[in-house]
């Protein structure tokens, strides 16, 4: 088990965003988290990635308790994440966006006098990653010129550049047109398998969830209300009503 979350809780005042949840993720699997708006999915990712400090509970990553660690340390341990709304460096090129992750993980960010493109290993690795995410042709474009779908992919590519063992992807296809969703998800799925990464994915589109997940976790009002393989979740009546009915 690569990740173990035990009795994890985070409240915002009265709102129980994550309400004492416990689950585990096996190495090499894809786990999806689904749930209506406000279920606590993003908060859960924020807690695991270190963006938020939990009120209580523990998070074990490869048996290290990472609870309360700052994000930069958690990323260096091998947990990468992406965002619901893409976080990318708008005024840098696509290539530089990915290179910065590579410098960071290779410990090169203190290198002050060598030209950044003279690090050939990192350069070819960055290009390989961009190729994997269908962005190689746009490597010299400033990313403010990229359409939304590419921005989503780049956000994820920057996490993959960290050579992570575990990725937390918050709605990789949100805001992407329904036609493009398939393409984006295919690229992400291929990247996950090629790199042998374990993935925890938040996703709204149930068709996508059922076709790519090894395991599905259903959240509602901060709690896990169901958990299982796709076939177990498909027939579940309470899950159906929660997902269709929203805040019930």
């Amino acid at each position, binding site marked *: 088990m690569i990740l173990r979350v035990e009795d994890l809780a985070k409240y915002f005042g009265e709102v129980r965003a994550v309400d004492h949840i416990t689950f585990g993720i096996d190495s090499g699997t894809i786990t999806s988290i689904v749930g209506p708006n406000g279920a606590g999915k993003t908060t859960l990712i924020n807690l695991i*990635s270190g*963006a938020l400090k939990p009120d209580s509970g523990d998070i074990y990553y490869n048996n290290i308790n990472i609870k309360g660690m*700052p*994000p*930069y340390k958690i*990323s*260096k341990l091998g947990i*990468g*994440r992406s*965002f619901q709304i893409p*976080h*990318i*460096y*708008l*005024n*840098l090129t696509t290539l*530089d*966006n990915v*290179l*910065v*992750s590579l*410098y*960071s*993980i290779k410990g*090169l*960010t*203190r*290198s*002050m*006098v*060598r*030209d*950044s493109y003279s*690090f050939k290993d990192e350069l070819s690795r960055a290009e390989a990653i961009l190729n994997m995410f269908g962005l190689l042709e*746009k490597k010299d*474009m400033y990313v403010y*010129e990229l359409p939304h779908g590419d921005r989503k992919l780049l956000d994820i590519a*920057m*996490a993959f*550049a*960290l050579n992570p063992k575990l990725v937390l992807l918050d709605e990789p296809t949100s805001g992407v047109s329904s036609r493009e969703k398939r393409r984006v998800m295919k690229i992400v799925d291929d990247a996950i398998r090629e790199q042998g990464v374990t993935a925890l994915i938040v996703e709204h589109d149930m068709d996508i969830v059922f076709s790519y997940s090894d395991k599905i976790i259903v959240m509602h009002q901060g709690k896990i209300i169901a958990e299982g393989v796709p076939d177990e979740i498909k027939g579940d009546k309470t899950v159906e009503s929660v997902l269709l009915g929203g805040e019930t």
Partner: protein
Amino acid sequence: MHILRSIPKEYYIPISLGLLFLFLISFPLIASRYLIFLLSLALIYAIWALGYNFLFGYTGLLSFGHAAYLGVGAYTVGLLIARVGIKSFEILFLAAVLTSLGISALIGYLCVKYTEVYFALLTLAFGEFFYALAFKLYDITGGSDGVSVPYPYLFGYLMDTKLLYYVVAVLFVILLYFAWKVVNSPFGKTLQAIREDPVKAEFVGIHVKRYQWYSFILSGVYSGIAGALYAPLFAHIYPDLFHWTTSGEVLFVTLIGGHRMFLGPVLGAIIYAFLRSYITAYTIYWPFVLGLSVAVIALIFPNGIIGSAYSFIKERYFSKTVVSK
């Protein structure tokens, strides 16, 4: 154009720097004493603004207190000459580097804990603290009158306006080249990533506050070096060096030239130094005229002069290659 194309790209920088150096070194042969003085001042401002722009343009942190490090450099040199009697510029220079490094490290460490407006206010507060200190430590600093600073010596030679100019020119070229190396290095790219999205940077393993601190120190040392040259140029140090209006000058200089372009602060510094000198010669209302011209420039060239020229040329002549699918 053909000649230009036959030169390999990697020689562009050394060749440009070489030409710049040649121009600067031969400038005193054709220029008056006053012009030499003025160009010294412009280059000192350029060094200061280059340093300031590590923090402002490249890291995205707005400081209102960078006069503090200019002042620390100037007072270190000035006080060591006037009060301690150290005459050797090599030692004075080293001392200014060390004090500005130490003080910007200390203040930067405290400031980067805060973000945006709180960061800006804290830098302002520290700047004013030094301003007050320069007043209050009357016995050492001479209070509001400041201290007059005799010429130092460089390797035994009297550092008059002309020798000082050469020192300024050489240091300028070195620091310009170093700045260019820095902004194009992985470190420089890391700072730019922090400017663009500090949240993201943290999630790709960058200890954001630490790198903001490094950037602060780097800009502090450049400012200190500028100060170390400023004191002998004016042969005088005075508390206004620390004042927030002085901090405002470096921000103006950077904005005029354009903080998004590497050479923006340099051009801004040259324009500013010459503009100020000519305006002050004609009217006592120079702060007013200066403020007005800065406002006009800001309105006409929102990206600074270099930045706007660059976008203009890019759009006019290279638009086809820029807009790829």
